[in-house]
């Protein structure tokens, strides 16, 4: 690993855990750290989360102990006790989650003991260790899930054969998380499944607490939430399926089949859904055919994204759009030894040749690791082969790069500073159509 990360496309563990905790229904996070951590999250969202800031608490409404030098010297547990006691008085919530930050962890506060005492007193309160030095926002999400599964989800006597839990979409890091979770929920519901997605408006603390009844956990990510899934299996016995994040008809059909197979559901329900949704997808896509060909909208695609999106976008543009994703950059800091795992989890998909798939966290380094064929041929009678016309699907930080490649660009991955996302989703069938609209929109804007 390098000694630095340049312009990381994620924040710290606390940020990830906080964005996720704030997204849970009726839940109040309590940040045990210095005051600035919460504001950092709010401003990070302002610039990176496609104009979505804060949860129901508002961006600076998250309770926090706001530690100062005094606590660094004498410990912060008294302050934490006081804060918890008063949080219940001020804040409307039913579940309270204490999230630790760097400072409380480095000074060694025994947060567990405090939380335990409130828990024994009957309060629904849990805690996760999410100090920034423990890792990035994806790690924070994972830690939050682990805490929930360990300390909040109740053991269940029996499984409900058509109930599944689904996770792997990281609130805030996936700026489309709200629409994406809703879309996946709808897809699985249309297969006559009951679905817990934990973080949407249709979830509740009750269904979260009963999540152990699920017959299957579906992790729609090769990376995020897999550890949590293992812990879930350990504690509650529910097995899990690691499925690729499904964008567009090909991947979504495969996804639905994987889920059905894991649940030992007959193909009937799956095929009905796939047939209906595919019919609809291609009915809507079909009128684009003439412009697609006549305007030559096939592109060499440069994909830059996290482990969910990088693979999902590459598969979508290759399998459904007929694009050529010549290089795919995964911007997560994935240790060498885990890279094989990730690739292994792309079960059934063709392996990516080495030169096509690049793990790279640093924004400028992406440019340095580009195949020279991305760089545009200067005008004149130059016959050098090039990846042109090109399109960059990345974050808003990749605009300069796209411009220098004379390529189109769409901001999809964090940070997304230059668009607003509300319920938009790129997942599933309709999400695929939405992505086609947005990609083409970026290509023909001057038309």
């Amino acid at each position, binding site marked *: 690993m390098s000694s630095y990360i340049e312009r990381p496309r994620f924040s710290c563990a606390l*940020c990830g855990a906080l964005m996720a905790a704030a997204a849970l229904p009726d839940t109040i996070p309590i940040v045990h750290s210095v005051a600035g951590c919460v504001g950092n999250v709010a*401003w990070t969202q*302002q610039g990176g989360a496609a104009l979505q800031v804060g949860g129901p608490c508002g961006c600076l409404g998250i309770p926090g102990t*706001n530690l*100062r030098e005094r606590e660094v010297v004498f410990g912060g547990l008294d302050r934490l006790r006081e804060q918890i006691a008063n949080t219940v008085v001020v804040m409307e919530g039913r579940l309270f989650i204490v999230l630790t930050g760097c400072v409380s962890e480095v000074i060694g506060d025994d947060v567990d003991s405090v939380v335990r005492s409130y828990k024994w007193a009957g309060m629904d309160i849990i805690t996760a260790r999410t100090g920034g030095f423990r*890792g990035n926002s994806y790690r924070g999400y994972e830690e939050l899930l682990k805490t929930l599964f360990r300390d909040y989800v109740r053991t269940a006597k029996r499984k409900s054969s058509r109930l599944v839990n689904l996770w792997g979409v990281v609130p805030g890091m996936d700026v489309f998380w709200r629409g994406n979770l809703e879309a996946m929920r709808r897809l699985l519901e249309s297969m006559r499944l009951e679905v817990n997605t934990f973080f949407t408006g249709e979830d509740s603390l009750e269904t979260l607490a009963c999540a152990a009844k699920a017959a299957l956990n579906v992790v729609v990510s090769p990376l995020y939430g897999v550890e949590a899934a293992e812990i879930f299996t350990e504690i509650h016995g529910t097995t899990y399926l690691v499925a690729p994040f499904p964008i567009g008809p090909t991947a979504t059909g495969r996804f639905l089949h994987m889920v059905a197979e894991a649940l030992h559901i007959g193909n009937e329900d799956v095929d009905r859904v796939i047939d209906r949704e595919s019919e609809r997808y291609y009915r809507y896509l079909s009128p684009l055919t003439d412009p697609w060909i006549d305007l030559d909208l096939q592109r060499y695609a440069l994909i830059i994204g996290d482990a969910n999106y990088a693979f999902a976008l590459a598969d979508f543009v290759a399998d459904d759009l007929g694009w050529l994703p010549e290089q795919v950059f995964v911007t997560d800091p994935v240790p060498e030894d885990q890279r094989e795992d990730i690739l292994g989890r792309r079960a059934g998909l063709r392996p990516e040749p080495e030169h096509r798939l690049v793990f790279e966290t640093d924004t400028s380094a992406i440019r340095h690791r580009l195949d020279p064929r991305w760089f545009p041929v200067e005008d004149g009678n130059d016959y050098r082969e090039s990846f042109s016309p090109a399109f960059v699907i990345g974050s808003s930080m990749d605009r300069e790069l796209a411009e220098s490649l004379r390529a189109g660009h769409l901001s999809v991955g964090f940070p997304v500073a230059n668009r607003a996302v509300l319920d938009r989703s790129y997942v599933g069938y309709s999400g695929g159509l939405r992505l086609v609209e947005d990609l083409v929109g970026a290509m023909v804007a001057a038309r």
Partner: protein
Amino acid sequence: MSYFDRATPPTRESRLASCITYGGTICGLAGKGRRSCLENAERSFSQGSICLLLPALGIINSLPDTAVLIHGAVGCGTVTHSQNCIVRMGSAARHGKARDVLWFTTALQELDVVNGGERRLEDAIREIDREHSPKFLVVVTTCIPGIIGDDVDTLVERIAPEIKARMLPVHCEGFKTSIWATAYDAVYHTIGRNLLEPPEGELTSGPNPRLVNLMNVSSMGRPDELELERLLRALGLEVNIFPVFADPGGMHRATRAALSVSTCPTHDDYFLKHLRERYGIPFSIRHMPIGIANTALWLRDIASYLGLKDEVERVIARETAHLQAALEPLLPLFQGKRAFIAAGEMRALANGTLLRELGFEITGMRTFHHDEFAEGEYEKLAADGSDFVVNIADCQPFEEANLLRRLKPDVFMGHVNANSTAARMGIPTVAIYQVGMHFVGYRGVYELARRLHRQIRNPSFNQRLAEHVRLCYREEWYRRDPFSHIQRRGEDQL
């Protein structure tokens, strides 16, 4: 010994006894100075807020030819994703082309916490210098290095001869201060220590008697600078805008000015005192050029230092007449409307005066901290005998929600990221600043009035929102004293 001779600047708490906790009224504050909220008043319940790292990066990220290395956990500094937008827009407005901030983090991990982060920092500096060759490299220290004791200044000094980039250490250990304004001192500290001497070999001309340093703040965009520049030029002055978006390599030119002009006392006192002590440059710092009267006071202050009394009165008279005529059609809508303001202390107070000039009544005010610079401003607002609630708080929207439910103001003006409580309660809101729009000088008054006018004309967005979403506070909370979580150990309270 000057503060600037030390590696790190003092906190505002120790230098100015600034504080962040008070609930009372304007009359309770006016004239009482720093005693008004005692240092040890504290909240028994608090909500997250920001730390000095954020405003510090607001300045640092804007500097051209500069890379920023944040020494800390990976999350510290991701606020830059937001500031990057401002830097893009600001660069486009100033240089015709958007520019993305180049920044790095040492992304300290568990092992670093145990073993210390100096090695990683040193490697990072060397690697960045080699790979990216920035002209300047700001090294920002955050909480973890502050606790585990990384000696960044010594390290920087040690390796400086081997590093091509000019390194600028800035200290932003969030736990050391609750007063974000310490950020300005932290940045000015490194500027004062590293960038005020002209480079060797550069011919230094003598002081320029028409040149003033116009101290901008990162919440002011190019239009605000242009408005102030316009006014100063009308006085026959040349303007050196400083430090936001200023070229670090040219900052030494500030030492040639005849006067430094602050636009916000909270922002600049530490540095301007240094410029005066070290380079003999006087400064004017008493007013913020926000509002009609304040802008005039600001201009007069400058003029008085430079002997431009007649000129300034001509400018003020002409500008005021022009503005007043333009405001005329907008004012009827404002008459008697009740306004609530929440922002940094100087900015909130100056806007209070401005809103009164437009015909609003001030019904309450929240300021992020309190220090001696604001005393005169409180007195301005309290002068006419009217009284209103004042709440000093580093955000703490729970107190705000309670206050707003009681006061039901007709309009709310708040700091960026601090308007959503009022908005979700259905109150028309106008951000008290937005980099890239007009807020200061005469033009600022006019544009703000237009903005208020249209928000009050159609507040549907907030109204619809209020009908359908609720804040996350218990109903019981609204029935309690809004300041009941302020631990009163002192005097002068409600």
